[in-house]
């Protein structure tokens, strides 16, 4: 065996190294139980992950490294776009870690800070394998690696019943969907005799009903991860029950990886039956966006609210797979980047507010928030505006490119429906803004000071929300890789 091919998996290896270092550090470095402060919370993980992110960029910036590489006979495939996606996931994870700081300082968390990081990074590693998979087995292993530690993360607050219930629901649904998807993969193996992405495509035919069923089962499995209707039902419960940082991780990072993989598999494997896939997604997208919007309007728990918002956003995200065009891929990755900045920004504020106010997570708790915390309200408004797609924030541009990609691919009706839904989504995002700015309250959440990590995270997200759209470099940079998939 040629061990040098491991070098093609540079990002995975360096992430593994980060995990191991944190693992060892967890054994030897003590955290002060009372204050919850220590190297492990949060400087070390953030610094290591940042270094890892920067190292991971090497194939893109350094002329001597090659981004396109395979390992293990094509089971592992890396491309420049995959590197971009992994980098986005890295940045998102760094921000999630910044969110987690205050939560991990709590006395009952202080003794298990290390586990949080290792578990989170293991799921990230799983997503790496998903993103770079060239074989269904590799893909499935990555998917499971991303799912199973996630359950532990959702159940992280041991004493919270909600958390445990959410985890139970998550793992049960995850198992169910994995089982069905595995069944779909076995159907593919049965009809084609191979699981390599490249080799399957020529043997896929639109007339083969078994393969069509396999397509649906695969979409179901991925749809569960991205939380598309009708595979989304776990989302609200899990988002509400999970610790807020884990919710933010769930809503952005794991969703982003899955959306990218969905595109890759449709593009590489199911290309001959792309018309059928488009038909499926046509209805899935309409239902995801619309149903989620209808549910979001009536929520009061802000985390549950964000769950439905996330389902709706997932619908927009998947708009890019329609037609499986290179523009669609660019739009997906760009949308992911923009969505990450805005959504993590909102979660940072939800999280710090929850920590500082003793667990207030209802939208009505935010009444009069502007009076007591004007800066946070303002940043929250920026992020919500970006989520709703209001110019000049980045969310407008990401939706614009997404709609344009779908429009060019010929899905005019779908774009129109999505546009109408944007208006509805504006309504419910503004409900929060209204609560913060307009509705008076006798007992608003008192003024509080955020910690440095939250501030850093907020600064990153705000920069993202404001600049990613206006500076066209981001879009063109991503765009140049989309043809070389």
């Amino acid at each position, binding site marked *: 065996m040629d061990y040098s091919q491991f070098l093609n998996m540079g990002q995975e290896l360096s992430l593994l190294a980060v995990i191991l270092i944190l693992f060892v550090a967890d054994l030897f470095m003590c955290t002060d139980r009372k204050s919850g402060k220590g190297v492990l919370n949060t400087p070390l993980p953030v610094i290591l992950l940042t270094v890892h992110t920067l190292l991971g960029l090497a194939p893109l910036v350094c002329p001597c490294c090659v981004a396109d590489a395979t390992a293990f006979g094509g089971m592992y495939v890396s491309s420049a776009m995959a590197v971009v996606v992994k980098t986005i996931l890295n940045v998102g994870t760094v921000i999630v870690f910044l969110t987690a700081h205050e939560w991990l300082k709590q006395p009952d968390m202080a003794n298990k800070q290390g586990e949080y990081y290792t578990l989170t990074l293991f799921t990230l590693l799983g997503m790496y394998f998903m993103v770079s998979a060239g074989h269904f087995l590799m893909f499935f292993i990555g998917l499971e690696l991303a799912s199973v530690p996630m359950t532990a993360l959702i159940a992280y607050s041991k004493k919270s019943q909600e958390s445990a219930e959410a985890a139970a629901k998550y793992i049960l649904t995850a198992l169910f969907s994995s089982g069905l998807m595995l069944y779909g993969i076995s159907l593919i193996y049965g009809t084609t005799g191979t699981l390599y992405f490249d080799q399957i495509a020529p043997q896929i035919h639109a007339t083969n009903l078994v393969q*069509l069923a396999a397509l649906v*089962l695969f979409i*179901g499995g991925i749809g569960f991860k991205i939380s598309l209707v009708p595979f989304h039902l776990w989302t609200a419960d899990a988002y509400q029950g999970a610790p807020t940082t884990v919710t933010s991780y769930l809503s952005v990072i794991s969703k982003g990886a899955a959306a990218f993989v969905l595109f890759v598999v449709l593009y590489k494997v199911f290309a001959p039956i792309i018309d059928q896939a488009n038909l*499926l997604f046509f209805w899935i997208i309409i239902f995801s966006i619309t149903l989620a919007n209808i549910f979001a309007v009536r929520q009061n728990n802000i985390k549950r609210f964000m769950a439905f918002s996330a389902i709706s956003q997932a619908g927009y995200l998947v708009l890019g797979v329609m037609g499986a065009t290179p523009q669609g891929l660019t739009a997906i990755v760009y949308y992911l980047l923009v969505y990450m900045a805005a959504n993590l920004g909102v979660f940072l504020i939800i999280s710090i507010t929850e920590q500082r106010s003793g667990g207030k997570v209802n939208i009505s708790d935010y009444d009069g928030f502007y009076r007591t915390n004007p800066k946070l309200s303002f940043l929250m408004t920026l992020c919500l505006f970006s989520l709703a797609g209001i110019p000049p924030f980045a969310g407008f541009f990401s939706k614009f490119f997404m709609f344009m990609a779908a429009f060019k691919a010929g899905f005019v009706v779908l774009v129109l429906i999505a546009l109408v839904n944007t208006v509805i989504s504006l309504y419910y995002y503004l409900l929060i803004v209204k609560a913060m700015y307009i509705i008076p309250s006798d007992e608003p959440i008192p003024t509080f000071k955020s910690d440095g990590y939250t501030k850093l995270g907020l600064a990153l997200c705000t920069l993202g929300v404001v600049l990613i759209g206006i500076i066209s470099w981001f879009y*063109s940079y991503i765009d140049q890789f989309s043809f070389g998939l």
Partner: protein
Amino acid sequence: MTYTLFIILLPLISFLVLGIAGKWFSHKTAGWIGTLALAGVTVLSYYAAYEYFFVIGRDAVTGAFERQVPINFCWLPFFDQSLHFDMGILLDPISVMMLIVISTVSFMVHIYSFGYMKGEKGFQRYYAFLSLFTMSMLGLVVATNIFQMYLFWELVGVSSYLLIGFYYTSPAAVSASKKAFIVTRFADLFFLIGILIYGFYTGSFAFVFDTPEGLASYAQAGFILPLALTLMFIGGAGKSAMFPLHIWLPDAMEGPTPVSALIHAATMVVAGVFQVARLFPLWVTYAQDWMPVIIWVGVFTAFYAAAVACAQSDIKRVLAFSTISQIAFMMVALGVCTELQTGHEHVGSVGYMASMFHLFTHAMFKACLFLGAGCIIHAVHSNEMNAMGGLRKYLPLTHITFLVSCLAISGIPFFSGFSSKDEIITACMAYSPAVGYIMTGIAAMTAFYMFRLYYGIFWGTENKELHAAHHPHETKVMTWPLVILSIITVGVGAYTTLAGFGMFEGYSFGSLVSADGQDYRIHFDTTVALTSTIVAICAIGLATWIFKGDRQPIADKLYATFPRLHRWAYKRFYMDEVYQFVTHKIIFACVSKPIAWFDRHVVDGFFNFLAWGTNATSNGIKTLQSGRVQQYALVYLVGIILLIAMLLIF
């Protein structure tokens, strides 16, 4: 010449710093930040102008100035890449000339505001907005394409709105700012539609056709270009206050006076002229037949505004109407320009040069007049002419500079306005003697109302009561800009007058800015020059006869003889009332009310139904989200089966 980027970046940075952190600075620091940024811009602009005009601008072979694009990048791409929004910096004679005008006037205004705005609440905000405006205006003139121009065009509009409404506690300022914004925005709508038509049919937002494909696309879109250009012209007419879209400019005088000098006299209001000049090659090539629109709108506006200016009593309003009238001169000059090539006879294309020349000279002397008016208002605390009189003793420097600018705007030889206005009238004469004579007549009216204003302020009886309360005086920081601007006025005027009469051969304005970039030496047409000078002197004489004395028997008698005419002119021929009538009685009553009814009952009803439907659906399907995981799995499975079934059916 990538350093030109800093011409835009410096004021942007100053805006961000002052806008975000302004309240932590003292007034003085904030003022210095803005002024230093502008000083940087001015130095860079002058250097860029030097480099462009004298070092690298000319094509080595033809000797004509060419377009230079030091920076250009694609800001918003569309998929097939044929249509894209670019951002960049374009240097050509008119944009470089505008850089000079904007940076000079803006710098003067920055200095002047130290004195004028001293102690005002919101001093930092004021400087932040000034920087924002300067940035937008500079971005507008160096735009490489029409979309970028539109973007900065709107930014200019916003900063104008913010500055007019600077005294936001005064209801008059607030309504003036709203009026300005709504009227110009209304006109900009046409501009936008024009741009969209243009982009749709030509497949590009570029100004020029320098590639063969570009030429082909223009030829293909030739049938629609006149419409697109005319729509864009409406946008320009709104910004440049052409009749009937002029109504916002007089009210805009509610803003601080230095702002009026910068935005509503020298720079922003000429954006419309600049836009027409920028698109001029297209006008001449494809829309020659539609150019009389520009001419007659211009001629009527020039006359109307001059007539109104004769009867106003608020000194800033007189200047505002004078500005409208002078901008109309520039518009007319562009309209009468029928050729692009300069050639030997240069008759057809002289209007372009004349228009830009007048833009330049007008910016200098009109800024000087406004800043002078600011000094006067600062000294007597009133805008009304009857509060003034006899101020020449108290404000000597203001008096001299004001006089210089009045002479310049009246078109007296050796003052800058003479040379540029003379070229405009020459161009008009070449187009049609009728237009030429009308414009000469309006020039005479200009001289008349300006000297009416001058005598009203500096001569006549003193208002003793007012002066007893406090002693009117000048401040150094406010008079320096006046002196500099009037030196420019006299210097440019003397130089161009001598050169124009052939006293010496040298560079003149036409050598730098002309329709096709070729060297064009200004030579006055003696008949035109003589006629207009005599007419101007007569008009000044008439004004002196009527208004110079302590008492004004002739003026009073005139008012008594033609009370209605005076009243009409004073009321600006009731244009505002016409607008009120049209908007309130016709549009609001006949169009808006039915629409409002429709909106309230049908549209709202539909959305209420939608909301009711959403709620009902939401109630109906809330059992879907039951919290029972068995059911979740069931839904999942049913979903899969349905999807497979769908594939089988279709």
